[in-house]
């Protein structure tokens, strides 16, 4: 290919498309050039000067983030000159840095800490001088600014200006008096503002929600998909002691790049709910009594086998594709069908990234539900549920239907038990949340994305797909087939 440029980085031959920065080309060669201001999803600033490398035949060191590759270029990342320059940048950055790592949320995932440890000077030559001091500022609903830790990489400013297109942050003043500023009365309240906390390479922008909750190294991290809307942003669920403490975006260049919205980021509270159904329940007169899985599944099978006529399924578009497909299989065999409904809100796009928004439909698997054959005719399905031979509910809260709804015989599979089901369900089978199972969601663009188990399900709860598989296995066929 003609637009591939060949160069050598740290002695390794690399081929990179024309226009690639030396820093990105180095990644291709497996060499990470230390950097602060550079971020692959932001416009290049070239200001931290941490990424300086030596380019043969060039009189000065080059900022690798801002230098495009050129044919035949020979780059040294670890040459004495380049290392000396990096050491100097680190020393300059530490001049005014408080070194309050023991109380800093960023400790353990701080790029300043990491690089100083890797290649900084062992001693300070600035000990005799007072550090600059500015008080902590409240930047908005979830964000605090700790100016003393700031290294002015301007990632946050660039994010708000170029990605959010909502420039509420600025660099104020000049020289070493500079700091990140916000306007009197303004707040970092844009629907995607929380990303500045992730973008901050040090602990200068911190999340109030996460403040002093955990040390970074104590967190277990699990790749997942945000359940907040149909966008399907790739995320990491971070847990400690089986509690979800933080959800952060996981890079996906084709989808959410490095970002997620605040609705998704801060909406994880339900994953830690304590009012979960912890054991299978079967009806005994007016009561639901806890039983083991065999008895509960047995009762469910009886109901399924006994159903004479079409079933109705009321499902949640937050369930996995696997669970939804099995429900469809179960009810569809007998000519039954099902529907779902989904909570709605305002669409909040991130203008700087094409096709990225907090979507109006606030559930992760609407496309999965549709693909499995469920319809949006919720009212029709709810009406038919009165006369159905069997009602199968998959984690649907049934709000608004009222306890007074006269249901057909009901199997309720779900994480919590709504009042609407408490009086009606014949069998209640406790299921796992998306954080407690492996599964896939199909996003708004039809992309099927896996997510993984991040915490243990409470009590005897099981993934819905497992529960449904058990039933299908025992039947050998779909429900209603015997009729």
């Amino acid at each position, binding site marked *: 290919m003609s637009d591939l440029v060949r160069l050598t980085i740290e002695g390794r031959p690399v081929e990179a498309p024309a226009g690639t920065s030396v820093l990105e080309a180095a990644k291709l060669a497996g060499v990470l050039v230390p950097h602060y201001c550079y971020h692959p999803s932001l416009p290049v600033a070239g200001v931290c000067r941490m990424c300086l490398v030596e380019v043969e035949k060039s009189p000065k060191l080059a*900022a690798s983030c801002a230098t495009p590759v050129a044919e035949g270029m020979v780059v040294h990342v670890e040459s004495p000159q380049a290392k*000396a320059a990096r050491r100097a940048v680190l020393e300059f950055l530490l001049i005014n840095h408080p070194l309050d790592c023991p109380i800093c949320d960023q400790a353990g995932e701080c790029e300043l800490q990491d690089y100083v440890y890797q290649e900084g000077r062992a001693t300070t030559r600035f000990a005799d001088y007072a550090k600059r001091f500015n008080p902590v500022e409240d930047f908005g609903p979830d964000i605090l600014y700790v100016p003393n830790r700031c290294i002015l990489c301007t990632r946050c400013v660039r994010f708000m200006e170029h990605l959010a297109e909502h420039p509420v942050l600025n*660099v104020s003043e000049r020289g070493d008096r500079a700091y990140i500023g916000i306007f009197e009365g303004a707040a970092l309240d844009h629907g995607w503002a929380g990303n500045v906390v992730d973008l901050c390479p040090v602990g200068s922008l911190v999340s109030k929600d996460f403040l002093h909750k955990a040390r970074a190294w104590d967190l277990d991290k699990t790749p997942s998909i945000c359940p907040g809307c149909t966008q399907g942003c790739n995320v990491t669920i971070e847990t400690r002691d089986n509690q979800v403490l933080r959800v952060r975006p996981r890079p996906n260049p084709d989808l959410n790049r490095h970002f997620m919205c605040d609705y998704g980021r801060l909406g994880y509270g339900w994953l830690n709910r304590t009012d979960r159904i912890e054991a299978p329940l079967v009806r005994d007169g007016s009561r639901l009594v806890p039983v083991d899985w065999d008895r509960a599944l047995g009762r469910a099978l009886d109901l399924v086998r006994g159903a004479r006529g079409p079933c109705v399924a009321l499902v949640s578009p937050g369930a996995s594709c696997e669970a939804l497909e099995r429900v469809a299989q179960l009810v569809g065999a007998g000519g039954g069908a099902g529907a779902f409904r989904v909570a709605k809100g305002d669409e909040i796009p991130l203008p700087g990234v094409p096709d990225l928004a907090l979507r109006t439909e606030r559930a992760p698997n609407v496309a999965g539900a549709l693909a499995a054959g469920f319809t949006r005719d919720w009212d029709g399905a709810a009406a038919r549920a009165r006369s159905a031979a069997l009602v199968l509910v998959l984690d649907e809260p049934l709000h608004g239907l009222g306890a007074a709804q006269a249901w057909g015989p009901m199997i309720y599979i779900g994480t919590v038990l709504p009042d609407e089901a408490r009086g009606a369900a014949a069998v209640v089978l406790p299921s796992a949340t998306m954080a407690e199972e492996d599964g896939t969601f199909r996003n708004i663009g039809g992309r099927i994305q896996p997510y993984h188990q991040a915490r243990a399900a409470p009590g005897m709860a099981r993934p819905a797909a497992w529960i449904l598989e058990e039933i299908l296995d025992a039947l050998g066929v779909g429900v209603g087939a015997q009729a």
Partner: protein
Amino acid sequence: MGYPHPTHPKETPVLSRHFGDSDARSFDGWKRRGGYASLEKALGMSREQVTEEVKTSGLRGRGGAGFPCGLKWTFMPKQRTQPHYLCVNADESEPGTFKDREIMRWTPHAVIEGAAIAAYAIQAEQTYVYIRGEFTEAIAIMQQALDEAYIKGVLGINAMGKGVRIDMTIHRGAGAYICGEETALMNSIEGKRGNPRIRPPFPAASGLFGCPTTINNVETLAAVPPIIEQGGAWYRAICLSNPNSTGTKLFSVCGTVRSPGTYEVAMGFPLKDLVHDLAGGMRPGRRLKAVIPGGSSVPILTADEAEATLLDYEGCVARGTMLGSGGVIVMDDSVDMVYQIMRLARFYAHESCAQCTQCREGTAWTTKILQRILHGQGKLEDLDLLLDLSEQMTGTTICVLSDSCAAPVVSGIRKFRDEFEAYIDSGRAVAQV
């Protein structure tokens, strides 16, 4: 007001011919002195011929970098597919430099005429004259001249009736040395913080408003009308030393000389004569100690070095310094070098745009170390530390502001080390820091 000194016999007045002559400020006065004939002549030539003439003259940029002016103009696209811009750099903020101010306040039409010729050559329909905000007088004079030029039809959509659009707008700065750096200047015009930009792209490809742009210093442009009038070869012949440095140059001499002021001499003129002769030499009982020949950003010369320096680009480099903007700062033996170097470092710390780490933190730290030495609390290691920091502040940033801070510090310590050591050894402190 009046220009402080009559022309000295050793001067070669070309740009400064009408300094002190307030009649030359008006449009009619300028015309009476042959003004706008060059513009008329240029508009009758092809753009290539104009540029070629300037190339022939050997004129190099007078803003500090000394880049060949005609060559710079050839970098502009030949076909205009989007607007082209000319920026006139009248930010003149480099300590020691005050020549552009003289040009603007005595011969504003020379600037307008030169800029109009350049605008024609590079196909710029709009020219922005970026004048530092503090130059209230120069701004008023330039604005008046500009208004007159519009009224007289010299500028506008049909400049001089030749069917060429040449518009010109004064853009007032607001107090930032760094806006003299060409890409910072463009950002400032665009209504941004005056942050220098990363190059490439270079201004001729993507400059002001993302369009092809040329930036020239006031003095560079003011030299263009005489070149068009008398020919590039004539200008080129004005040369006392190296043939790569041609024409005349305005040197603004300041500091501890008897007759500070702006003097125009041929390239290659001896610095010794400029200081001791034209500028009147030292005050009674004083000896020359040091000279910064090209504005505060270039290495300091000792008296001996200065007296052996020829004032052109090559002559300065031969003595380990640079011609820069031609701001000659003279210091006699009453000057406390440590204090004045601290004062320069403080200047750069104040002016750093805050983008690059080395500059933002390095200029401030350098100043603090120097202040501590001045407080009598310095250590010998501090001098090595200063040299080490300066090395890391040189050639590592987007623009050369931090290099500019390092230059006087490094040369100062190398050449006047005894003064630094005296503070350190004695623990003596100066009263004012």
